[in-house]
């Protein structure tokens, strides 16, 4: 298998939308729909991601279409940027590959009352302090360790459990998707291996595309929405991207192993083994859902503890308590998750399992699941870009409910493979190049920075433009990085 170009059909299907008709492959139950403009579409054709959109359309019970966001790229099983909703009443399935190994990988944005000029003189020290305090890189353990009993409580309750330990505030919980706790979590379904991997990894960043960035709000596009989020031009923010660490990877791995032979048992034909699935209403499906929700709650605790350590680093460098710096959580949103939600499909209200694999929920104003402080503006959608250019905050729009099961993109999306990015970086100092662009970067390895260099990603501004134009989410603020730590 290699990086082959997709040569199948991609027909125009409306504003920034392209169709792979279900006639493309026998076995597709619905069309594939990819959101992109023409420039992005050319990049999207460069690998096998569109083929994966077509493959996902095989899943039993899939509703409306197999969808992909403009940051789509080749994944394993599902493409990254993929969205699929299945109806349990029509034999709908749950697929661990539609959530991914990094269950509830997601992003959170923290604001402050600091201006760029307050932080700029200390930025190198601040980045070094963040890098010293926050464990990054492969398999790194951290300062928080939990025994099995504590881990199970943490997975049952999410970050709310950290309040009594002085590691979270009620305000943090209110600004987290689902208040950081999916109901129906079954910590007892999480294997001893997963517990062992998760014991000392809560509050660690990991590697790959995970990061912690110090950013400055560069431009505001929607004053009212920005005010509701207490964001203003020139403000210093912190963005955190990580997930459920080894615990979540192991939960997914365990589930895929348990699903060996299960699709065949239920008569499900799949074009890719990584799409392994089970009916939602089956013992295998329910077991995965219980464990997946527990891992999702662990991930919210991980990002909570990462934020807590970032607050401590700011306190240490600036000599002011984080409360006085008003380092409050704006929002935390998952982008690798499956959730049971109500949507209108072909004129009928249905409860469906929405798989979002590298895609962000983007509920519009007025939706009951949007927390009350954001109910009038819509759910904040946080879109990390790359470490040289920009990241974005958007708010969900009604178009997302009509078109994409309440979903928008999750990032810029890769355009270079990891190996190609390393080749391009030969003989270069990516950290120096970033410094020349005003970004202080610290990473565990040269290769880590090389693979994640800005040129490895699509231009996030183009990706955001597509979801904005298609009415999925509206632009609120653009941030540029000034400091970054990576694995």
């Amino acid at each position, binding site marked *: 298998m290699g*990086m082959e170009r997709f040569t199948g059909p991609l027909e125009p299907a409306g504003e920034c939308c392209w169709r792979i008709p279900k006639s493309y492959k026998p076995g597709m139950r619905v069309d594939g729909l990819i959101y992109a403009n023409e420039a992005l579409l050319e990049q999207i054709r460069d690998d096998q991601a569109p083929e994966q959109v077509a493959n996902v359309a095989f899943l039993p019970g899939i509703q409306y279409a197999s969808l992909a966001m403009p940051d789509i790229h080749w994944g*394993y099983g599902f493409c*990254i940027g993929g969205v699929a909703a299945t109806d349990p009443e029509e034999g709908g399935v749950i697929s661990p590959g539609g959530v991914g190994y990094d269950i509830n990988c997601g992003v959170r944005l923290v604001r402050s009352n600091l201006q760029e000029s307050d932080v700029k003189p200390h930025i190198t020290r601040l980045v070094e302090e963040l890098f010293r305090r926050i464990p990054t890189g*492969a398999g790194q353990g951290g300062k928080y360790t939990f025994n099995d009993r504590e881990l199970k409580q943490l997975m049952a309750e999410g970050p709310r459990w950290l309040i009594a330990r002085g590691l979270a505030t009620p305000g943090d919980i209110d600004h987290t998707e689902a208040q950081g706790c999916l109901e129906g979590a079954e910590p007892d379904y999480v294997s001893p291996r997963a517990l062992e991997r998760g014991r000392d990894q809560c509050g660690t960043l990991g590697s*790959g595309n995970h990061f912690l960035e110090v950013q400055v709000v560069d431009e505001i596009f929607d004053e009212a929405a920005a005010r509701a989020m207490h964001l203003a031009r020139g403000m210093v923010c912190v963005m955190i991207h990580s997930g459920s660490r080894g615990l979540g990877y192991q939960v997914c791995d365990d589930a895929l192993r348990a699903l060996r032979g299960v699709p065949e048992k239920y008569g499900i034909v799949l074009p890719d083994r990584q799409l392994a699935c089970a009916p939602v209403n089956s013992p295998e499906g329910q077991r995965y859902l219980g464990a997946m929700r527990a891992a999702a709650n662990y991930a919210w605790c991980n990002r909570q503890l990462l934020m807590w350590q970032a607050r401590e680093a700011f306190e240490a460098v600036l000599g002011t308590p984080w409360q006085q710096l008003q380092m409050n959580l704006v929002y935390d949103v998952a982008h690798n998750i499956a959730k049971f939600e109500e949507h209108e499909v072909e004129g009928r209200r249905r409860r469906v399992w929405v798989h979002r694999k590298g895609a962000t929920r983007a509920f519009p104003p007025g939706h009951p699941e949007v927390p009350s402080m954001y109910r009038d503006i819509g759910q904040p959608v946080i879109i990390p870009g790359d470490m040289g250019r920009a990241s974005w905050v958007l708010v969900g729009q009604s178009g997302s409910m009509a078109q994409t099961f309440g979903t928008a993109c999750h990032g810029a999306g890769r355009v270079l493979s990891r190996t190609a990015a390393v080749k391009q970086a030969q003989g270069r100092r990516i950290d120096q190049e970033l410094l020349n662009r005003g970004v202080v970067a610290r990473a565990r390895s040269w290769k880590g920075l090389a693979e994640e260099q800005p040129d490895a990603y699509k231009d996030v501004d183009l990706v955001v433009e597509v979801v904005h134009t298609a009415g999925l989410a509206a632009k609120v603020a653009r941030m540029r990085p000034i400091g970054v730590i990576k694995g």
Partner: protein
Amino acid sequence: MFEVFEHTADLGLRVLAEDEPTLFADAARGLFSIMVANLDAVRPVCKKAFALQGSRRDELLFDWLSELLYVFETERLVLSQFRVALGAEDLQAEAWGEPLDATRHQLEHEVKAITYHGLVVEQTAQGWRAEVIVDI
């Protein structure tokens, strides 16, 4: 022998060998080479034994690599030399390496998991070939 091949977001590992035990041993070395930069500097000071069951060769390769990942992460053990014996439905292996030492071992990628996407173990005219994509 092994090589890393292109995948947009993750990494692919391609292994070619004369026989199946070498294929499995080289795949293990390939996996560790993705995680640790200077594998040749790893000293074979401790030994670890493995025993796995499985009727399908591709799933056995998957389980073998997953097992190594688990050992690396939970025991912080960097393994660099492998001896593998394969039966009809089982794998017995010995591996040598040393505890991870941040001052001497340069960590590179965190491999989140081994995936089934494009997983291949097959016999070719020259011997054996395996491909596996790992999630980064």
